[in-house]
């Protein structure tokens, strides 16, 4: 299916690694020019290079999504260097794992700041060029933790749940200007960079501990960054032009809500 993304401009936050990086590469494969936004400079530039190798324009803009001036600069640079902004995918995130009552109170701020305030900063900054164009697609990467809650992930669940509510309000605000806003919601997702972390959390492949976790998923497997990226890029395309204010879980049936 031709998603109609050739020559379009997509900003991807959190694209130095993980799902964000695969989202950026997927955009590039579809012929879109990409803006890599991340606080990690070396890895971010690496992603930009890999996208260029796929035949598109790709620039890296160092961005701390918790600082509005950074995000504002990100969007303005995208418009200046690449002409416009057709899509934004926000994947910048962090998490703190542990039983809520044992976590230090100041550990929540980081999670809410990067995930939720980051999303709000991006939604605010990118609205201006998109409204002027009377067209645009915004996709936030949420989490099933925000849909059904996740044990030992209180701040993360709150932030991702907040992103979902925010995205609907934003969809209602921007809809009359022809802009869609949606959320893609992964479950446990394997990325090239998180193998070690996953092993720590749920055991090695083949372990009984991991088998137990995998058996909770109706499709009997965990997600990959590609699974999530395909859906995010589809939502960011004109082929999903009548989809807005929606949350779609890409988590093998982990949650079946609504």
């Amino acid at each position, binding site marked *: 299916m031709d998603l109609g993304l050739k020559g379009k401009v997509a900003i991807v936050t959190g694209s130095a690694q993980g799902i964000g990086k695969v989202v950026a590469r997927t955009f590039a494969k579809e012929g879109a020019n990409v803006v890599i936004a991340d606080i990690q400079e070396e890895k971010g530039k690496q992603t930009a290079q890999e996208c260029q190798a796929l035949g598109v324009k790709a620039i890296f803009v160092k961005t701390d999504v918790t600082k509005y001036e950074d995000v504002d600069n990100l969007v303005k640079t995208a418009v200046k260097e690449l002409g416009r902004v057709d899509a934004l995918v926000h994947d910048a995130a962090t998490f703190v794992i542990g039983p809520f009552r044992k976590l230090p109170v100041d550990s929540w701020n980081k999670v809410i700041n990067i995930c939720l305030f980051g999303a709000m900063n991006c939604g605010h900054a990118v609205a201006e060029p998109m409204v002027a164009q009377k067209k645009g697609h915004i996709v936030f990467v949420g989490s099933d933790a925000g849909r059904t809650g996740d044990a030992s992930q209180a701040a993360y669940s709150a932030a991702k749940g907040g992103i979902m509510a925010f995205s609907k309000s934003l969809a209602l605000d921007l809809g*009359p200007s022809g802009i869609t806003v949606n959320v893609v919601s992964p479950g446990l997702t394997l990325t090239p960079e998180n193998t070690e972390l996953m092993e720590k959390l749920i055991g090695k492949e083949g372990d009984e501990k991991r088998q137990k976790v995998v058996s909770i998923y109706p499709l009997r497997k965990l997600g990959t960054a590609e699974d999530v990226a395909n859906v995010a890029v*589809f939502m960011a395309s004109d082929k*999903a032009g*009548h989809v807005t204010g929606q949350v*779609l879980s890409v988590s093998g049936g982990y949650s*079946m809500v609504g």
Partner: protein
Amino acid sequence: MELGLKGKTVIITGGGSNIGRAIFLAFVKEGSTVINAEIDETQAKKVLDEAKGLPGKALFIKTDVTDWDSVQNMVKTAIEKTGQIDVLVNNVGWVYDRLFVEKPREEWEKEIKLNYWSYINCTRGVLDHFIARKGGNIVSVGSDAGRVGEFREAVYGGCKGAIIATSKAIAREVGRYNIRLNVVCPGATIPKKEEVGKDSMWQEAFKFFTPEMAEKAAHAYTLRRLGTAAELANAVVFMASDAASFITGQTLSVSGGYSMM
């Protein structure tokens, strides 16, 4: 985006007009072999003609989806003709908009037959085959009426809600065989007059869904317009594809923001 649908066999129920027709043509465009399980022969032949020249193959098997024997026959014939079924799209639906307290019982029974029993028959009809080959994909057309409730569509909405709930249950049962079930929900999707058959529900429904009413209804959508059948079809094709291979038990509204859950 590579969707992996080339050469796959897709069954669509009620592909004779409106949303079903758009889904049928969208899959043929992807290079699939598409079977129209449609009761209206004239409409089905019209759509076969429209499919000429597109990359895939277009076939027709006359089917009454409310009749279990007819459905079993259709599935058997489909497997004989194509060797393997990959996707089922449950699209047949019927509604007559009326306040719940003004509805005659026969209309409820017709709605339950055409919306829910059709879904049960066809889903059950392909599942043995899907389980045996450890793969398969069922995408059902729901409705925002089944998610958030809709004036004048109480039992119709109930049927669409039933499709959502049943798809989730079956998704849990057969996920282990690599079989996925999902539901895609349109908002009001009004066909062109020349597109529908003489027995179509739209012959009556056009009296209600006038151009003036459609313009008024558009205000309820944040995108300020009603959706097209083609837009719904894009989402169905995507959900049936390899690109959506980790999605199951989900409901996606393609309705311009009419419902946000």
